[in-house]
């Protein structure tokens, strides 16, 4: 299938200012050379710990944050430098769902107005009646009732609010959605409902998704392919099945082994990573993971490993081929 979205060598460095003149004294390398492509109808999972840059990737490729370097292609068009008015038609086709269902909905607007707002902005649904009809349809689509239209966000539970956020994203019939930790703030029993809903919507509407999460288990259920990020870089990318069964990068291996399994009879070897994720202001030279890697060699400090193919559709950024 054809590629819908592609990023090449995407970079986002946030300047750090200091001193009385607020001069730039350094930069936080939140995203540092990330490349991947998402095909039409595909779900790409993007996992990583806090500070890995996964959220910045999601926002940068929608140009909610302007990239420092690299290119973003959407449906064949380079949208990296498009001016605002030319970007608008693309904005309609790319939407976002946020993590926190409490702060991402305006408490003073009714649910109906919240969902209709993108329709108004993009000039879809000419009349009030048309919009109301569309909102009712969207509410049903996400498992709520059209009667909910006149209520306010505070009258809903976390899971229901997340459904409202999803309805808003779907209002303008987008082709591509960035779902940024959409289930992390929800209870386990509700999390499963929302994951299932996203899966259904993807099938029904043929959506393409970038699913960002720190929970590896959730990502596996919904993703076709998964990319693992660490300190602003992609460490490994493969089909979901392959990545979970046969991780090739030491970081992926450690990350998978750190997830506690809900079965007290399962005993397995756990790789406990030492220390914390290093500061993105001053990342380690060479491979950024080497300071916590149990397979690190002196060479790892000298060269930044490129993503290289290690199997069909399977890439890793690690110089060691003699492990895993």
């Amino acid at each position, binding site marked *: 299938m054809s590629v819908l979205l592609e990023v090449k060598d995407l970079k986002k460095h946030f300047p750090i200012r200091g001193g009385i003149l607020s001069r730039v004294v350094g930069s936080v390398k939140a995203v540092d050379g990330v490349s991947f492509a998402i095909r039409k109808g595909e779900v790409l999972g993007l996992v990583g*710990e*806090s500070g890995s840059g996964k959220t910045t990737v999601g926002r940068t490729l929608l140009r909610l944050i302007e990239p420092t370097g690299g290119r973003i292609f959407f449906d064949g068009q380079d949208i990296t430098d498009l001016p605002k008015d030319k970007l608008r038609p693309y904005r309609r086709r790319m939407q976002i769902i946020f993590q926190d269902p409490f702060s991402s909905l305006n408490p003073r607007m009714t649910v109906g107005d919240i969902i209709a707002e993108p329709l108004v902005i993009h000039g879809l649904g000419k009349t009030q009646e048309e919009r109301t009809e569309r909102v009712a349809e969207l509410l049903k689509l996400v498992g709520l009732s059209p009667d909910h239209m006149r209520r306010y966000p505070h009258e809903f*539970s*976390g*899971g*229901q609010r997340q459904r409202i956020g999803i309805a808003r994203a779907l209002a303008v019939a987008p082709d591509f959605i960035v779902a940024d930790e959409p289930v992390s703030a929800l*209870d*386990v*029993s*509700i*999390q*499963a*409902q929302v*994951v*299932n809903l996203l*899966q259904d919507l993807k099938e029904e509407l043929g959506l393409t998704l970038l699913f960002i999460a*720190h*929970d*590896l*288990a*959730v990502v*596996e*259920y919904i993703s076709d392919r998964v990319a693992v990020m660490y300190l602003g870089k992609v460490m490994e990318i493969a089909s979901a*099945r392959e990545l*979970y*069964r046969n991780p090739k990068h030491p970081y992926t291996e*450690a*990350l*998978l*082994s*750190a*997830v*506690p*399994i*809900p*079965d*007290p*009879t*399962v005993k397995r070897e*756990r790789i*406990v*990573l*030492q220390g*914390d*994720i290093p500061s993105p202001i001053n990342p380690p030279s060479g491979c950024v993971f080497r300071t916590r890697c149990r397979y690190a060699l002196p060479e790892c400090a000298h060269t930044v490993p490129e993503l290289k193919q290690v199997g069909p559709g399977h890439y890793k950024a690690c110089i060691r081929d003699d492990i895993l």
Partner: protein
Amino acid sequence: MDEKRLLEVRDLKVHFFTDDGVVKAVDGVSFHVDKGETLAVVGESGSGKSVTSLAIMRLIPTPPGRIVGGEVLFRGKDGQVRDLTKLSEAEMRRIRGNDIAMIFQEPMTSLNPVYTVGDQIAEAIMLHQGKSRKEAMELAAHMLDLVGIPEPKKRLANYPHQMSGGMRQRVMIAMALSCNPSLLIADEPTTALDVTIQAQILELMKKLQEEIGMSILFITHNLGVVAEMADRVVVMYAGRAVEQADVVPLFKEPLHPYTRGLLHSVPRLDLAAEHKERLEAIPGNVPNPLYLPPGCAFHPRCKHYVEGLCDREVPSLEATGDGRQVRCVRWKEIREVRA
């Protein structure tokens, strides 16, 4: 109270008196913790698990909250059993930190940002053990070393903001364990941490428990963490315990429909791919604590619900005969059908 018992909570009731009505956050919860054991209390938001732990420590904000019934029996270091709900604030202060210590979810909000971590650990030691500042600082450094913080002597002079989340949680643990408590209450201690850091902290807690021999009351919503840490488990829903069992039988054969639903809704890394098509979600929402459904609070979400049976009376917590307890009128039928 039985010799090996450290803590016994009997029919605990904590209600919050709000403008909108009475919220029965904890409504008749009973469980016990034995010496050296880890008991996990699991539940989703609003289940009352955190309120239970705060009530044991007598840290319920009053008003609006109040312990309206029940007993919290605790065996102190001196061997005496006391009902913590009846103690004066001064007596309670001697227990907190010394006999029972607590760690919370967000280490940044539980540490004071304007004091060094050394000062904060030493404060508890000076208060409870009557040590001099110098001795307390030495012990504080030893505690930081124990929880795996490199260069502990230097770190004593650090402020909390100079440390990462994982480091701060280690400091909290060092502080909690500095007076050798017999019970550590850990309320979602790893929820705010990344998985790799969570693995470090869980590993550390297990190691320290082996060395020190304290009991742990582990409050969490994460079933993976429960499987890893607990000897026994209490499952809470809407302010009540709905099931209690040893960890292995609970995961192998959950008896309460809620426990079962919870276990099935968790995405799992360890299952074969063919079982991963779809998650089994529990339908509906966690009920509003102001308007709990009549009868079994779980009935509107339960697939085994029978009209006229489940929505009449609150089921009692029944002993199953094999050391487990379950609060469901239909548990026997459901178990037989499955077998």
